[in-house]
């Protein structure tokens, strides 16, 4: 849309009474920000929808006149949907600055050839003439209760130490990385920190790259914080306008937030797509208040973060042992020759067949990770010769959930899988192998996560993890070393009994 500047105020062309020169918002040099009138009686519904957000006019259900009035009373701001830095356009909502994701279109709203961002288009189009709207009036009230946490579990020594560091970081508005091995019980480590934040009236956000995790965490947190409102956000969820003290969300939904949270906890920092999507990292930065704390959770920080921790450049705390006080299973490496070539002749390496057979004979469930879907489709019929009930899953498999459930119910003996099952899913007593561990899709963190599937329950804390490979890679070696180092640290700290 177009705006005029009248008496040092921005005025949408639709509300103009006389003919004035108008511009798309991005062509206006300085957008006037007006002083907040403290005696203005603002619309509480609008405050609720807009507080801590950055929304399009189309996202709001209020008439333009009312929105404009709140602007003129200093209760909201218009920002440029696309702004320019160093002569380069940048999408203000998602931070995109790549030409690949920008395009022009003849825009009916401004009547010009208008630049728009294709990167975040699924959340409604941001173009050069689009105002992004944020609340600047009094913050919406969040309820405050003294005792929030209702949990009578206990923490392991490793968890307790980490929990104290989390509380400290939250109280002091600092950043902290919690490096907890797979199966350490990192969610419990957050409870007291979140409680401390809520008790001092802070707005807390727990973000994760994956919808599955949001769906899993929401009931758990609602359970331990029964007296507060919890918003659960993912594509298509209904809590979109809920202004809750605790928000559990996918990182993607954070694109609609702006300076909203005093505490952001980011789970699985190293997981796809957050790890590779700059726009999601940008979204997390935008969603934080200027003074706020940030807790990162991961079992597998990337190489850069590991180095920063090592050199004291990043505050971090480790939980090197699992809650059941058994060491992490250490991967074995087994050379399996040029398995891809063999596969063309419908042959699998004999040591892999043997590994699988041994598990089937012993009635022990197992997972076999495979680098690519097309390879998996070739392998499935070959492996099925050993047992007809073996199944395969991948990200776009429509029966993914049923197959995982069948595995959990022990109805099937074995699953072939792509990296889709590398994290999140746990089966209590399984062995795991990777076929083609040399493939570049198996990064250090992927391999540590895959090894982390083994020995999760206290009843079955051991198990076998084997990397079948056609040439060792750095990632394989680093993954093994990381696991060995964690076990060693845990032993030193007295966190392992066995």
């Amino acid at each position, binding site marked *: 849309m177009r705006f005029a500047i009248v008496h040092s105020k921005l005025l949408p062309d639709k509300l103009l009474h006389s003919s004035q020169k108008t511009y798309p918002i991005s062509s206006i040099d300085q957008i006037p920000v007006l002083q907040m009138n403290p005696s203005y009686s603002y619309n509480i519904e609008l405050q609720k929808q807009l507080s801590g957000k950055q929304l399009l006019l*189309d996202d709001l259900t209020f008439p333009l006149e009312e929105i404009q009035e709140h602007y003129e009373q200093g209760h909201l701001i218009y920002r440029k949907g696309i702004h320019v830095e160093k002569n380069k356009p940048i999408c203000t909502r998602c931070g995109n600055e790549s030409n*690949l*994701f920008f*395009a*022009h*279109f*003849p*825009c*009916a*709203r401004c009547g010009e050839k*208008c630049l*728009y961002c*294709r990167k975040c*288009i*699924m959340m*409604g*189009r941001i*173009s050069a003439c689009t105002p992004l709207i944020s609340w600047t009036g009094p913050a919406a009230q969040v309820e405050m209760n003294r005792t929030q946490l209702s949990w009578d579990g206990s923490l392991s020594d490793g968890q307790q130490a980490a929990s104290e560091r989390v509380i400290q970081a939250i109280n002091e508005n600092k950043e902290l990385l919690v490096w907890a091995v797979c199966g350490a019980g990192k969610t419990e480590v957050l409870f007291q920190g979140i409680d401390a934040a809520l008790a001092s009236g802070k707005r807390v956000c727990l973000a994760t790259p994956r919808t599955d995790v949001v769906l899993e965490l929401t009931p758990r947190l609602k359970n331990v914080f029964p007296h507060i409102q919890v918003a659960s956000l993912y594509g298509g969820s209904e809590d979109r306008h809920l202004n809750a003290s605790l928000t559990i969300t996918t990182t993607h939904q954070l694109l609609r937030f702006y300076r909203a949270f005093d505490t952001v906890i980011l789970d699985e920092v190293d997981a796809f797509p957050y790890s590779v999507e700059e726009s999601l990292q940008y979204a997390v930065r935008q969603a934080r208040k200027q003074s706020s704390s940030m807790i990162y959770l991961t079992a597998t920080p990337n190489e850069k973060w590991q180095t920063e921790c090592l050199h004291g450049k990043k505050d971090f705390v480790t939980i090197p042992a699992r809650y059941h006080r058994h060491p992490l299973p250490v991967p074995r490496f087994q050379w399996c020759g040029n398995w891809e070539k063999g596969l063309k002749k419908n042959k699998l390496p004999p040591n892999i067949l043997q590994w699988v057979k041994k598990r089937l004979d012993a009635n022990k469930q197992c997972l076999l990770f495979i680098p690519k879907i097309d390879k998996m489709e070739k392998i499935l019929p070959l492996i099925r010769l050993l047992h007809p009930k073996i199944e395969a899953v991948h990200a776009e498999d429509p029966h993914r959930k049923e197959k995982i459930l069948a595995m959990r119910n022990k109805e099937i003996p074995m699953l072939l899988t792509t990296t889709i099952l590398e994290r999140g899913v746990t089966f209590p007593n399984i062995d795991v192998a990777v076929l083609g561990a040399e493939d570049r899709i198996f990064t250090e963190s992927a391999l540590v996560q895959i090894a982390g599937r083994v020995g999760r329950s206290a009843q079955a804390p051991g198990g076998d993890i084997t990397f079948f490979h056609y040439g060792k890679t750095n990632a394989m070696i680093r993954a093994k070393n990381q696991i060995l180092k964690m076990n060693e640290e845990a032993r030193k700290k007295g966190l392992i009994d066995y």
Partner: protein
Amino acid sequence: MIINHCLVCFSELMPQMGWTTLFSKEESHYMCTECYVKFEKIEGETCKSCDRPLAETEPQFKVANRCLDCIRWEEDHEWVGTLERNHSLVHYNDFAKEVIARYKYRGDYLLSYLFVPLIKKKLQLISFDAIVPIPLSEERLYERGFNQAEAIILAYGYQPNNLLTRIHSEKQSKKSRSERIHLSQVFQTKINIPNKKILLIDDIYTTGSTLRHAAKVLKEAGAQSITSLTIARG
């Protein structure tokens, strides 16, 4: 326009080198092969009026090479012969739904180029004097930012002939078939177009009601014949 990434999934487009590409232009220029194959092209025997694929139509819903819906249209003296023929490019499957929704509701304008190669092929079979987009009402045009039918014509490199205007009304997609058919006329035209062959463009053919209402107005304004082309056949 130079495009080296798939318009749908953004993956890099690898030029497929080989004898075939040397002598013929690749069909799927603006998308990668993975995305291209997710669209089901309309092929084989189709209804000679609306292009509905007849292979999967139950026998009780077709007579010879016409579908029952079109037979009903053509039996109605008010509508007989209004729309000569509709052509459609792809089935309105889940993937097409997703892509078209991103194009017209989210407003990803660039996707108007997606079907240029398929349109090109189709237009060789159709003769026309003027190419006319199904218009949006002023309100809807402002809301969407562009007219999705007009954008397709522009992407193809033609000048759209905006012969029609539209009165604002409820969204079509929220109505039932019978509500759509018994709709009062929402289109208007101010110009007489004697003896012109008109090609109407829209994104989806669902019941054919929109296109027939538009065709009717053009016919009354003197057009000789009206055919239509849509991206998807619902």
